[in-house]
């Protein structure tokens, strides 16, 4: 493989440090904000019985006041994958709730981000290739407009048009009520059928950002000497556009793709609520309603971890596109 060890170690190092900070943040937040963390994490009234509350306090070391002890306990629990117990859907632990919800969110968000990046790439290129043309101006203005619209509003509008008035898509949920009885093929069909609108919403909502970034990058690349040389060589327009123009414009926007992942997940949280799509967003929403703090913390941690992992993957893919990074 063409990887340069220093680059690899550096990237994994950064990912681990970010993860560590996210975990520590997750630990510190409830303690900094509200008075007694114990009451937050194991309040009797929510669980209805004293022994359960005490058992939980012991498990999380909340009975011992020293912060470090609690922190050590918290990390130990975490390594066992035990994120505490969720109030709302007691007694199932937070980890199970998360495992059920995460695939839905990751599925929609990742497909939406990649598709939106691809479409944004194509539109951006076509716009930048002939600047000032009708196509370029119209995409530019609509991108400005789209980038200033909240995710969930687009979701509501789409439901109103496509589901309610036109009836093409379901009003929400992730699968048909009779999902379990389906054969695997119908299951897949129903999942896709339900997932289409949320993914479509996410694509439209994030498309504007990608178009603008790519168009600006390509405008800069087009003024470079090697583009002029490519034209002088009489190369076909398609080769110049993609092998020379787009490939160089892709590089800076690829790092943009990574940082936008966090933004997309943020948007997905609100979109899932509109579609009542059982992803992490929906879980977080219900957790907030029921003041279910362990679940809130758990969902935040899952989001942070998945984003960090995706970024690490993108970091590892980057040297394959940009030769300058991997080899020096």
């Amino acid at each position, binding site marked *: 493989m063409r990887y340069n060890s220093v680059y690899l170690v550096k990237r994994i190092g950064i990912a681990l440090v970010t993860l560590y900070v996210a975990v520590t943040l997750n630990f510190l937040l409830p303690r900094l904000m509200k008075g007694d963390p114990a009451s937050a994490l194991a309040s009797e009234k929510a669980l209805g019985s004293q022994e359960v509350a005490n058992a939980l306090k012991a498990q999380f070391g909340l009975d011992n006041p020293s912060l470090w002890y609690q922190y050590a306990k918290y990390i130990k629990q975490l390594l066992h994958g035990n994120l505490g117990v969720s109030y709302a859907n007691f007694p199932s632990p937070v980890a199970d709730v998360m495992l059920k919800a995460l695939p839905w969110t990751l599925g929609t968000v990742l497909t939406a981000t990649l598709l939106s990046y691809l479409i944004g790439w194509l539109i951006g290129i076509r716009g930048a290739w002939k600047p000032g043309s009708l196509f370029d101006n119209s995409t530019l203005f609509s991108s400005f407009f789209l980038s200033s619209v909240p995710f969930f509003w687009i979701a509501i509008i789409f439901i109103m048009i496509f589901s309610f008035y036109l009836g093409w898509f379901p009003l929400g949920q992730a699968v048909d009520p009779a999902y379990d009885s389906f054969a695997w093929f119908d299951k897949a069909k129903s999942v896709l059928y339900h997932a289409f609108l949320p993914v479509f919403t996410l694509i439209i909502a994030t498309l504007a950002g990608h178009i603008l970034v790519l168009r600006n990058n390509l405008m800069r690349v087009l003024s470079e*000497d090697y583009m002029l*040389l490519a034209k*002088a060589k009489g190369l076909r327009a398609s080769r110049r556009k993609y092998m*020379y123009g787009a490939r160089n414009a892709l590089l800076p926007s690829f790092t943009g793709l990574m940082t936008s992942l966090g933004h997309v997940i943020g948007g997905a949280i609100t979109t899932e609520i509109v579609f009542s799509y059982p992803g992490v967003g929906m879980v977080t929403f219900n957790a907030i309603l029921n003041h279910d703090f362990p679940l809130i913390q758990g969902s935040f941690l899952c989001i942070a971890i998945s984003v960090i992992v995706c970024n690490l993957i993108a970091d590892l893919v980057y040297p394959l596109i940009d030769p*300058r990074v991997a080899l020096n």
Partner: protein
Amino acid sequence: MSDLLQVRHLSIEYASPRGIVKAVDDVTFSIGKGEIFGLAGESGCGKSTTAFGISRLLRHPAQISGGSVVLDGQELTTLSNDEFDKLRWSKISIVLQSAMNNLNPVLKISNQLIDAILAHDPSMGKEARQRAEQLMKLVDLPVDRLDSYPHELSGGMRQRVVIAMALALRPSLVIMDEPTTALDVVVQNGIIRKIVELQKEFGFSILFITHDLPLMLEMCGRIGIMYAGKLVEVASREQILQKPRHPYTQGLLNSFPSLSGPKQRLSGIPGHTPDLIRPPAGCRFCPRCSQAIQECQTLPPPLVEDAGGQIACHLYSEEGIAREQASAACERS
């Protein structure tokens, strides 16, 4: 020596917020087959614009507003884009200033050498690689460098690759726009000697553009001097060295500190270049010209062709010469 390229009354302008800029105004010259023709002038005189006009590489606001360009008897300005693309690189190729980015940073050197060949002859396939190796040997570069990326080469090596690339399809005209300006003088010397050697071997013509007059005088057979969009003088190397006629050429020659001549104070040229949107009525060099005469303020100087080449200056036009003799006569008597 029959002419390869004839440029007649070429004019190029572009719209700027402050008005129409006449970057190139009524330029006429020709380049013989196998001749190294130099186009010299200071920044903003339109030499690069002329070259890009000839090879139809003008960037958006600039466009040809008049004149004709004939290559090998074929008029270029009226060709459609597709017809012109057939000529690109097979008849005319270009070498740009060796800035950091005249090679695509994400493509291997071999791909960039081959894709010009493939664009014109897609069936090449395997031999394209051998052609690329041939080209590298041509410019004394190690063949194993074919698989490295541009950022791994030194400035000098990158410029040699670009020169090899320009010769990939054996064009009849190679335009070189300041090819060695960004390089150190020792590396530049090596590359210039390699260009002259290749020119002798393949016999293509070169349109060499630079602001470095001494370098041009060492390399080009005939030289055209441009000032503020006008071609003021065209003459052979010896003519310009011994007896430059146009006052601007004399001023230019008097601005370069030489290494071998006596050490004396040089005067350069006072003042600065005119505004190309509203150029002065008469000769554009008049405000800075020490030998300006009456007509210079009002009348643009006609282009006079004679044994010594071309000159656009009232001192050498018919009435100018007549007046010259008259004033010389009264001085003597």
